[in-house]
Every structure is written in C-alpha cells, then in structure tokens.
C-alpha cells in the first residue's frame, strides 16, 4: 500500500501491513486531506478501506471527499466507521456504527471488526476521539495496532497543545510520523510536510511545501524567496554565493532581468530570485512580491545614501505582508556601517534581523537564509518531536 502523497511515496515506498502512520497536523493547517488522499488512492487500487469519522456526518465526509474530486461512493470497497451520528443524536445507515461514541469499549468492539475486514483504516481525526474519550483512547489504539497485522492504520492527528506525555505516546505508537506544519507570520502563509519518523526504511528528513487544490488534493511546490535591494548592492553576487547553480542576465555589469538560483536548505528546495536594482524595473517587484514567501533585502553598507531607495523597494515587495531580513553587505570595506547603525538610519523595528555579509566571499549568506526561514517556520504548536 502507498500513502498516495507526492514525494512521500518516493521516499517511503510501500507501507508494509501491520504499520501505523500518523499525520501530525498543525491545528491551523488544513491537514485532514492527507488521510483522505491516502484512503482514496488505495480505494482506486482496490483495497478495502474504511474511514473513521468523529468530527462530521457521513454525508459531510462524502461531500468533503467530493471537494477534491474523489467520489468514494463509486467504490464498493469503501465504508465508513461512524463515530459521529449517534453523538449528535442522528441516525446512521453506515456499515459500522458506534451507538455510544463516548464509550471506548463499544468503539473497540466496532473497530476490531473493521480492522478484521479491511486493508486500510483511516482515522479522520484520532485527536477528536482522544478529546471525547480521554487518554485511555491511546491504550485501545495500541491494541488496534497489535490487532492489525494484515492492515494499515493511518491517522490524522491534530497537534493541539497537549501535554508532552500524550504527544510522546502518539509518537511511540506510530511506525511513521509525517509532520504537517504551517509557515506562520502573523497569518499562516504556507504549509509544508516532512518525515519525522519512519521505521521500515532509511530516509533523511526532507520537507516539501504544499498547496491543497480542489479538485486534486495535496500538491507539492517549490517556494520562492526574493532578493532585492538598490543598484549595485550585491544581489547578483549574493544569489550566486548561496545557490548550487544560478543564472543571471546581466548587461555591462548590471542585472537587466532576474537572477535565478536554487538552494538546498535543510531538506527544502528553494527558488531564489534576485531582482534588478534599477528603478525602471520596479513593476517586476510587485509581481514577484505577490508570489514569494519571504524577502531578503541586500544593502551596500558603505552607501547610506541608497537606504531610502532600499526602504522603498522593501515596501514594494512586502506590501502583501511578507516577512523580510536585511543583508548588510560589503562588510569587508573599511567604511561599512554596522547593523545597528543601519537599523537606526533605515528606521527598522528591533525584531527585523540585520545580518552582516560579504557576498563576494560567501560570508554570512547562509545566516541570512537561516534568519528568514526561522521567521517563517517558527511559532507552531506542540509538534511531535524528539524521539524521531
């Protein structure tokens, strides 16, 4: 069986029977699609699949699948384990119905049957069952895991700020954990997933940014970072210093189109775009700013007279609320201003990182990227971490 998620399938290969896989989901990220996609892809392969719903009615779940273009009812091998209807006092015609969804013994009875009769069980929200039935749920989950020699159990688990014991236990009970996180900056600007743990194959951690497409489901994409700054500040040099491979379109030493590089960074592949510095290219800035995830502003630290222009470029590219960091470049020059002086002259808030760099020697360029990425990825909630 496969998870049916881009990149993960290549890295993890087939999931052996008897394994449990947990999608550990940031509470602000639309992550339930992961479990649904895994189920649908295996439905198409002909496996017997059951979806456990505890947060919405069977009808709503079917419609939710349809949002992604997946009409599960066309498949005879699809069934629902209904832990919802009776909770809100509705009737249910599903194959598996739990009469009292607050009673773990009864859930256990139905789950045991479902595990016996299916190849794949997907919990739409394991965390909700935990919320309703208490921590004892995980004792039962351990039994289901032991019971499922023939079947694979996949769970969506929303990582609310639970106590660490609970999160540790979920981690331990999973043979693989996929972290689905948000890129937070005032709002959730983007989403990524990565492998936190897997015990049937050896993989290096790798993270992928994704978008949820309707219809379509999870799509991986490559994030863009914009490198901007005044004329001759060192942008092109910066992009080349940080990229494995990069191309530029320069004429007489100045950039007339875009610098473009690709960076491998902590498992992410990032597209880096350097903009031209001259004002006549400004319309490009706005277009690029709309697509990027973050901005690096390169300034020539020896030229305070260019700072107003730098500030103007920053405003053009970050109008949409993008996070940014400053590379205080040409620090090898005797007249270079220190980050603090630059902060004062440019009137930048205290929390904006200003990193000294010498782009020609590659000094400080990765620190700049580090600062930007930690602005982007910081601020999530109780991720399942540690023992991976």
């Amino acid at each position, binding site marked *: 069986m496969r998870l049916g998620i881009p990149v993960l399938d290549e890295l993890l290969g087939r999931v052996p029977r008897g394994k449990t896989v947990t999608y550990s*989901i940031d*509470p*602000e*990220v*639309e*992550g*339930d699609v992961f479990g649904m996609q895994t189920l649908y892809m295996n439905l198409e392969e002909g496996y017997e699949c059951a979806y456990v719903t*505890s*947060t*919405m*009615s069977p*009808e*709503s779940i079917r*419609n939710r699948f349809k949002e992604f273009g997946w009409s599960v009812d066309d498949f005879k091998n699809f069934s629902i384990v209904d832990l*919802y209807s009776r*909770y*809100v006092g509705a009737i249910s015609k599903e194959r598996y119905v739990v009469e009292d969804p607050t009673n773990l013994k009864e859930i256990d009875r139905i789950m045991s049957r479902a595990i016996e009769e299916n190849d794949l069980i997907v919990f739409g*929200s394991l*965390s*909700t069952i935990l*919320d*309703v039935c208490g921590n004892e749920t995980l004792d039962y989950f351990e039994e289901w895991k032991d019971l499922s020699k023939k079947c694979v159990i996949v769970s969506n688990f*929303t990582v*609310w*700020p*639970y106590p660490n014991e609970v999160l540790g236990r979920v981690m331990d009970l999973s043979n693989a954990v996929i972290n689905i996180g948000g890129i*937070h900056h*005032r*709002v*959730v*600007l983007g989403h990524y997933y990565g492998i936190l743990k897997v015990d049937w194959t050896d993989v290096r951690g790798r993270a992928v940014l994704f978008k949820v497409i309707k219809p379509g489901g999870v799509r991986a994409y490559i994030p863009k970072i914009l490198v901007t700054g005044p004329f001759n500040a060192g942008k092109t040099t910066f992009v080349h210093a940080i990229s494995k491979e990069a191309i530029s379109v320069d004429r007489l030493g100045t950039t007339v189109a875009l610098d473009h590089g690709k960076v491998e960074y902590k498992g992410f592949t990032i597209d880096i775009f350097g903009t031209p510095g001259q004002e006549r290219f400004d319309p490009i800035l706005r277009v690029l700013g709309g697509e990027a995830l973050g901005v690096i502003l390169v300034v020539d630290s020896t030229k305070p007279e260019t700072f107003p222009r730098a500030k103007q470029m920053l405003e053009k590219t970050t*109008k*949409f*609320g993008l996070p940014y960091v400053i590379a205080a470049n040409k620090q090898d020059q005797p007249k270079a201003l220190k980050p603090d002086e630059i902060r004062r002259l440019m009137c930048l808030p205290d929390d904006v990182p200003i990193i000294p760099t010498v782009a020609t020697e590659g000094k400080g360029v990765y620190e700049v990227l580090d600062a930007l990425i930690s602005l982007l990825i910081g*601020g999530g*909630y109780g991720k399942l971490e540690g023992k991976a």
Partner: protein
Amino acid sequence: MMIKFLGLDVDANNVMVLGPPLSGKSILVRNIVYEKVLEGFGGIYVTTKDTAEDVLRTMEDVDVKVVDCVSKTIFSDAPDTENIKRVSIMDLTGISVRINAFLEEFWKSGRRDVVMVFDSVSTVLMYLNPQMVFRFLHVLTNRMKSFGAFAFYTVDEGMHDEKVVAMLKQLLSGVIELRDDGNSRFFRYISPSKRMEWRRFDIEGREVVIS
C-alpha cells in the same frame, strides 16, 4: 493597540463577553462587527447558535465572513460560498482552519484591521470537554494576538463551573460583563489595566443604544 465602540476603549485582543442568557450578548457583538466593518475593518463571525443565513440577515449591507458551525452539525450538508464556510462544531481543527483562511485572505489583500466574534463558547463547551476547548482557544487567541485582530467570545454566565470561567479568563484578558436587573440592561468593560463603571444600554430593534 485599542479598539473603540459604543464609547468603550477596549485594550485587549481577546475579550470575553460574559452575561446570563438573553442579556443581549449576541446583539452586542453583532453591533460591534457591524459598526467596525462599516468603518473598514475585516469582519469574521463564528456562529454556533444561528445559521450563517440567520446571522447575515441581521447584518445586511455589510460584508462579513461567517464560519457557520450550525448547518453541518444538525441539518444536512450545505455548500460553502465566498463568504460562508461551514463546519461541524465537533471539528475544532476545521473551525481553526476556516478562521485562518479568512485571516489569510484579509492579510493578503492588505487589510490589517480585523474584528472577530465567536458566538458562543458555551455551545462548544456543551459538545466537548473544557480542556479541549482551552487548547483550541489557546491556539485561536494567540493567532488573534499575533495578527493584531480584536476578538470577542460570548460566554453564558451561570452555565459553567466557576473554574471553567476562571480558566477562560486567563486566555481572554478583557471582559465585557452584561447584567439585566429586570428593568434595565447594563454593561461594563474590565481588563488588567482598565475598570469602568456599569453603564446602562437599551436594545432598539437590532441596535444597541447607550442611555
């Protein structure tokens, strides 16, 4: 950061609107959203008691985003629209994700002033245990703070354990209290740095009027 309405200076990003049933909480928060959206704020209304259509009917001619936690819970499934996202009340992750989607929309269109109403926390407490509701509110209140939005959460007084209300107050640092002595209605605002006197108000149609 402050937000002003009905003569109040509210200095907390997350505010509990606490009062007995029928004391006018819903009407008050609807007035806040209505007034602020007219001033150019982005408005988000999370409803657990009335359907999105019922809420919007009381706020005609303003553009309010609604997270409807009613339709999908009780009635059969209804589709989303541009301004209405529906989700079951059991699906706290779904609620959180929908609120964030609206915030992202505001953020990307350059809108920084946002007001949100959550009406009501008491309904959620009927379905899910208090700890879970705190975890949910912990995440939500942090988001409101980091966005710089102002959020108002209605809570029915007398319905919950005192401990529950005390814990809610840890997350919701401002409180608008409502009182009804049979003849007149009163409200006041209390926060760590402000404490105002009770003020009388009346409800005329859909409007809150300060006497």
